[in-house]
């Protein structure tokens, strides 16, 4: 309990995206002992499903060496020293002791897709396969009352232990009637609040669940909000991006299995191990940015030479995510790698404020009053013109008045 209180405290007092990459030997030794004890305890638990990780790896033709390579990469991703590698490997094997309930709200199921992504299952996906997914609206066979029953049983059986993954935004307008679920027609809002009540922690997956995402984009007809606006007083982890990277989902679950705590979070409640770094600083095209070599239009010589996509609206310089490091689909590729700019999908309000595919200076932005859409430069030039016209009128009037004064009698 005190652990949880500490975790919550930490959560709401962390102010920035600052990442402490080295916390000293004493800290790591203590953490190591704690994690080891926890894993031993987990091992004694009954697995929640009958899947065996080692068998699964073998079935998919992944040998021990490859698995250990993955374990050391994941250790590094979680910002732990190499001595944690065997523990991370153990934690992966014990993932089937971590009960997960997955809710799907107002979204496109893209994060479920990411979770299941199987262009030939890789280790991240296999790890996600064996988590004990107790309830998943999109994936399960059960429906209607049967599904409700299953959810209730899972919530009862794993009370206070399960991780609640939430995908999708919560419509708040019209008393939440924009989205209802299940045989009883429960609103998304009530559904989420009910499921979150007994969760150990809530994990908001994808941009919709974290910050409202595309459903919350202007004019936001359904009044969509993210989980953190609805669920209070619970450890909450945001894993934004559209879709969230499975590597980061694995990271969060692994961290939970390993330490029993939520990972260190930034001010937007995103795990620092994944969102502590700016895309721009680890981008393979960064040198072209500094050199002033930009793609000017799609398919030009610059595009053929992998030049920087800044002028095509790449938002890497304002976006914090690790996709320039871990990439997607087990390191196959990522947006900038395929020659299109970043749209800032892991930042709040990304659809309105980042995803316009041109530099900010050229983007039509809504004035705070709504309505008018102008670029900052158009608006600024308009202001400058107005100032110029005002000055011109004043100057002309002054000149006329001055002349009259000179010829007239009003001179003091």
């Amino acid at each position, binding site marked *: 309990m005190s652990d949880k209180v500490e975790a919550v405290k930490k959560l709401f007092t962390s102010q920035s995206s600052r990442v402490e990459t080295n916390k000293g030997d004493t800290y790591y030794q203590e953490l190591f002992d704690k994690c080891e004890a926890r894993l031993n305890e987990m091992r004694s638990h009954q697995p929640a499903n009958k899947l065996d990780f080692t068998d699964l790896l073998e079935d998919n033709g992944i040998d021990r060496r490859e698995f250990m390579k993955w374990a050391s990469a994941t250790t590094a991703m979680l910002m732990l020293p190499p001595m944690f590698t065997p523990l991370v490997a153990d934690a992966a094997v014990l993932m089937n002791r971590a009960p997960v309930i997955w809710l799907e709200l107002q979204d496109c199921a893209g994060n479920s897709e990411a979770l299941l992504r199987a262009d030939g299952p890789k280790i991240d996906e296999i790890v996600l396969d064996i988590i004990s997914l107790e309830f998943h609206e999109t994936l399960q066979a059960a429906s209607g009352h049967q599904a409700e029953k299953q959810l209730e049983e899972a919530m009862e059986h794993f009370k206070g232990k399960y991780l609640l993954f939430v995908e999708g935004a919560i419509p708040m307008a019209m008393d939440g009637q924009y989205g209802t679920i299940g045989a009883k027609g429960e609103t998304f809002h009530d559904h989420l609040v009910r499921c979150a009540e007994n969760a150990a922690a809530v994990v908001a997956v994808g941009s919709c669940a974290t910050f409202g995402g595309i459903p919350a984009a202007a004019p936001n007809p359904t009044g969509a909000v993210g989980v953190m606006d609805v669920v209070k007083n619970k450890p909450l982890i945001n894993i934004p991006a559209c879709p969230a990277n499975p590597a980061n989902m694995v990271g969060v679950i692994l961290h939970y299995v390993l330490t029993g705590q939520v990972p260190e979070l930034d001010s937007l409640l995103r795990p620092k191990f994944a969102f502590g770094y700016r895309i721009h600083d680890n981008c393979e095209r960064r040198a072209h*940015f500094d050199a*002033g070599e930009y793609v*000017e239009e799609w398919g030009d010589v610059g595009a053929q030479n992998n030049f920087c996509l800044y002028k095509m609206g790449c938002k890497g310089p*304002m976006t914090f995510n690790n996709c320039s490091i871990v990439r997607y689909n087990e390191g196959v590729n990522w947006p900038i790698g395929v020659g299109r700019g970043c749209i800032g999908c892991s930042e709040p309000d990304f659809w309105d404020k980042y995803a316009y595919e041109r530099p900010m200076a050229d983007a039509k932005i809504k004035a705070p009053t709504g309505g008018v859409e102008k670029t900052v430069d158009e608006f600024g030039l308009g202001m*400058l013109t107005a100032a110029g016209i005002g000055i011109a009128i004043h100057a002309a009037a002054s000149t006329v008045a001055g002349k009259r004064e000179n010829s007239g009698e009003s001179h003091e």
Partner: protein
Amino acid sequence: MKQGYTQVKRMTPAMRIIHWVNAICMIGAVVTGLYIGHPYYQTFMADGAVDKYVMAWNRYGHFIIAIIFDVTSVIIAYLYFFSRFEKPYKKLVPNTQNITEFKAVLVNLLTLNRKKEFDSSHADSFNTVYFTVFHLLLIWMLLTGLQMYVHGLGSGLSSIGAWWPWMLHLTTDWTIWICGGTLMDVRISHHFTMWLILCWVVFHIYYQVWRTIFWKEADIAIVIGGSKFVKDDSLKSE
């Protein structure tokens, strides 16, 4: 000296140097800043990337200018309260005298110099308020600029130690919230404030020239020679 006029000192050499440093930095900041916001000229395709470094030089120039602005801002803030010449804060206090003077100067501007019922030999409340608006805009640029700068120090480290990004987060993270909650809002605000400053500059130059022409007291000389000339009788009448 012209008969019937008295020379009055209005700006110390330090104030004039700061004024021109700021003015030149302003031009540099706008030129480099517009490039950073939207690179408006292209580099030669044929040159190797290692030879160019165009964006990096623009950013370097922009940041050096920002540092100069930091320094002058600190000096100006100090002089506002502790100058041995004139303490501008005294003209900002909203007391009756200052409000009356502010109104009188504004009336003078709006009536095209028909009415001039204030002493123009010393710094007036209207101009002091107007200059203060500029300093506030500049401080806003510094805060939002440093907020964007610290995004590049994601590791929490910098070449001068970890205290620097820590301090920047501490002192500028609130600008995100003020601007609207995202990093992009800070960028938009920084870019937009440039336009506000340009409007400020346009009026400032116009107004000083206007005073020079219509008051006939050589106000424009203040920023170069440090003094202006006031009619002897106007001094007496006050």
